[in-house]
Every structure is written in C-alpha cells, then in structure tokens.
C-alpha cells in the first residue's frame, strides 16, 4: 500500500525562476516514517507544502492516500482531514493573539466534532500538556510547549499522513528529545504515515524507516535502515 506516490513533480516558485523541484519521483508506503534531508534551499519544504495542499502551483502526478489532487485546486473531501502538517517554527505557526483553546477549537468546529471542549482537553493531555494551558497565549508558552500545541492541533483530525517540517530544529537538544519521543508514541498509537524533513542527520536516523537525500530539486538517493544505522 502506498500512502504517497509522486511522479515527475515540478514546482517553480516564481515565474521565470529555476525549478525548485525538478521532476521528482517518490513513493512512501503506508505506515512508514520517511525522512527528507538536504542542504537549505534544495526544495524539502516546498515538497511538503505541495503535499499539504498549501502550494498548489505544480506539475506532474501526485497520489495522496488514494486521492488524486489536481494542481491549482484546493484539497477536497477527506483529504483535507487526512493530511496535516507541523511547521518548523512554533513561534510563527500559532496565531499570536489567539489563546491555545481557540487555536484548537477552531479546527474541531470546522470538523463538526461533538463536544469539542472535551476533545480539546484530550488532545492537550495526549501531547503531555496540562489542560490549563488552554487559556494561555502562545507567547506565554515555551518553545517545546508551543510545538506540542502545534502537534496537538495537527492530530485533532486524526490524520493518516503527518507532514513534519523541521519540527525540532528551533528547540534545544533536551526539548528535542521530548518531542521526538512524543512523535514515536503517536506513531505507535495511531497507524500513521509520517514524512519528516530535517537537516539533522541524527534526527532522521533516529526516526525514519527510510530517508531520501535531496539535492537540486530531486531525490538523489534513498537511504535504507542499514545506512541510517551507521549515522
């Protein structure tokens, strides 16, 4: 079963500029943790943004959880729920003037979940946060707490594919360990496919079943567990 199948995907961010992603092909199996590494500017984040439906200006063929999203179209149906993303900078990805409760209740309302408040409390304790945190603003939280809120938000809709864009690179080593442990726990509790972007080979080697090394807008080689073990 493949969760993600991409064939000859090309993305150009600005008209006339060179391709950021240049006929890239990738297949990720259901339940796999796939890593993406590469130098800054090689197109890792752009690839995730295409898969999340944030960047809709692309060419090629994409199959996501048995849906076929089309370029220039918003995701529709279940796909909107099933693909979720956690962004790099927890300082920037939460609305600075919305309390945690609002950040989490908004998607729940959109999904039409019954008793959203209870679901929110549950989501917070799932990621190891005190539910009292719901009444705080993002600036009143530490970096690690903010990233936990962002992960809790992504998990609200029970996604089948979780896209993680450098989820720990703005965090301290000790907090990074806590977040990576949390992600492993989530992985073992819910059957979920993850695509993890990081420039830290240690993080990739710790988390992933396979990893693709990106360069020049394509995946230059794929590392299996044996190669990752040596890192």
């Amino acid at each position: 079963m493949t969760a993600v199948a991409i064939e000859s995907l090309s993305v150009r961010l600005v008209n006339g500029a060179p391709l950021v992603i240049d006929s890239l092909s990738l297949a990720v199996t259901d339940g796999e943790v796939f890593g993406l590494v590469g130098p800054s500017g090689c197109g890792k984040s752009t690839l995730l943004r295409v898969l999340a439906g944030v960047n809709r200006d692309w060419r090629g063929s994409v199959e996501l959880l048995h849906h076929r999203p089309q370029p220039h179209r918003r995701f529709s149906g279940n796909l909107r729920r099933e693909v979720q993303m956690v962004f790099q900078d927890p300082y920037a990805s939460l609305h600075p003037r919305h309390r945690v409760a609002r950040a989490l209740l908004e998607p729940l309302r959109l999904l039409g979940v019954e008793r959203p408040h209870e679901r929110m409390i549950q989501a917070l304790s799932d990621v190891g946060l005190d539910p009292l945190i719901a009444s705080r603003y993002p600036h009143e939280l530490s970096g690690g707490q903010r990233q936990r809120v962002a992960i809790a938000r992504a998990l609200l809709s029970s996604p089948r594919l979780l896209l993680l864009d450098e989820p720990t690179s703005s965090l301290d080593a000790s907090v990074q360990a806590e977040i990576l442990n949390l992600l492993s726990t989530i992985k073992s509790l819910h059957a979920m496919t993850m695509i993890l972007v990081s420039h830290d080979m240690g993080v990739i080697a710790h988390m992933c079943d396979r990893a693709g090394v990106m360069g020049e807008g394509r995946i230059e080689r794929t590392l299996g567990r044996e190669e990752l073990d040596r890192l």
Partner: protein
Amino acid sequence: MVCATSAIRAMSEHSLLSVRGLTIRSIAALRRPIVDSISFDIGVERVGLVGESGSGKSLTARAVMGLLSRPLEAIAERLEFEGADLKHFTQHQWNQVRGSKMALVLQDARYALNPVLTIGRQIGEMLLLHDKTADRKGRVREILSTVGLTDPGVARAYPHQLSGGMGQRAMLAMMLANGPRLLIADEPTSALDAALRTQVLDLMCNRAVTQSMGLLLISHDLPLVARYCDRALVMYRGRIVDHGPAAHLSLSDHPYTRALWSCAPSGRTHGLRLPVFDRSQIDP
C-alpha cells in the same frame, strides 16, 4: 599585601577575563536571580558555555560585554578584562573595548547585521571606530578574504542578499577586523545547516588559535563543544553546575550534563526512547 596583589596580577596576566560572583537579576521583579553568582576565568583558550535555553548563557555573555539594559542588572564581586575593572567602566571606555579587544558574534547574521547598510560599509565602520587606516576599502577586502569571502560583490551586498553561511562569515570577519583578544560567540551556528556549521566553526577556531585569542563559545550542542573547545562550563538555571575538559563531557557524572549529552538522537537510538532528564532530580 604585596604578595596578594602580585598574585592577583599574575592571575590576571594568565587570564583574559576573570569573573567572580556574577549575578544577574531583574530589578523589576523580586524573583530568584537569572544568573546566580557564577565565577569563571578565560585565558587564551577555547571555552564552551553550554546549557539549555533560559539557563542564562547569553545573559552572561551580555553582562561581560556590558550590554545588559534595564530592567536587567548585573552585579559582580569581580569582572575584569585584561586586568581592567569592567565594573567601573564609563561608556567611553566600553566603546573603546567593545568591537576592538572584545567582540561578540551573534546567532543569526540576518538579524544581527544592519539591514540597510552594505557588508563593506559595516566592516568599514568597525575600522573607522577603532583603527584609523588610510586604505579602508583595501582592508575591508582583505578582512573579507580571511574568512573566505573573496568575491568583491560581497562587500557591496546587503545582509539579506547573502546566504546564512556567508552572512555568518561576514559577521565573523567584522568581529575579527580589529584583532580582538576575546571573542564571544553566542550560538554562532544554530541558524546554519550541518555543512556550513562545520565550516564556520573550523574558521572561528582556527583564527582563535592563530591569533591567540580567548574564545567563549556559547552553545546548547554538547558534541559540538566537545569537538571545538578545550574546556566546558555547563549552566543550568543560572548556575554553573558542571565544568571540566570539553573532551570529557561525555564522561561527566553530573546528571544534567549526562542527560544533555545522551539525548542526542542518532541511528543507534532508532526505535528506542531518548533519555529525558528528570528536572526534579537536578532542581534544588
């Protein structure tokens, strides 16, 4: 008495920076101090200051450079740089020392540099303030080439036009322009990716050795400090809880140092839970 003064002189000759009982607190709040009575010396060597964010590493660096502003306030029993008492420095004296004898490299060049001045102009300003050379343009070019930026276009570029690594090297060039005795680098490579990180640190440490400078490297990355530094100081919640040769960081028996060291993920930890330290064990 004579003996005592000569002993102190001998010590300050030995060490560039001598700090005793440095305490930093916020005068607005009567909470526990942010940095609590720490003491250390730095000579011509590379010293790593490690700890997680909020442990007071950066504030320590700022206090040493006299850069704390209200509501933060630093008090110390002793704060000496090359035998001079920093505690009673006037603004004028600070201006003479900062950027010439003591220099500070910050985390992200894109924020630390002035966005509306070209790189060449900013390096030139450092020279104008401290070193009255006639051929400033030539010196700027020379300084940039010492950090591997030989393209003359770099001097004409604005900070946002450079990549992260180039910006960081340009900032380093600027700080080394006047041949400082002590270089403080506050997380100089956390904004860079792995390849650039090694490049910038190699450069910085080589220059520290060849120009016999003291280097205080602030980082939360223990393996990096172990690789690049001679000695390490470990800070936790405003105190220096552990210190020793940087190469022996991995062997430390302090629970905090051990946790910081072993929480790094790698291929060997795949499928295992990473150790997370129990703060109640370390907190007093």
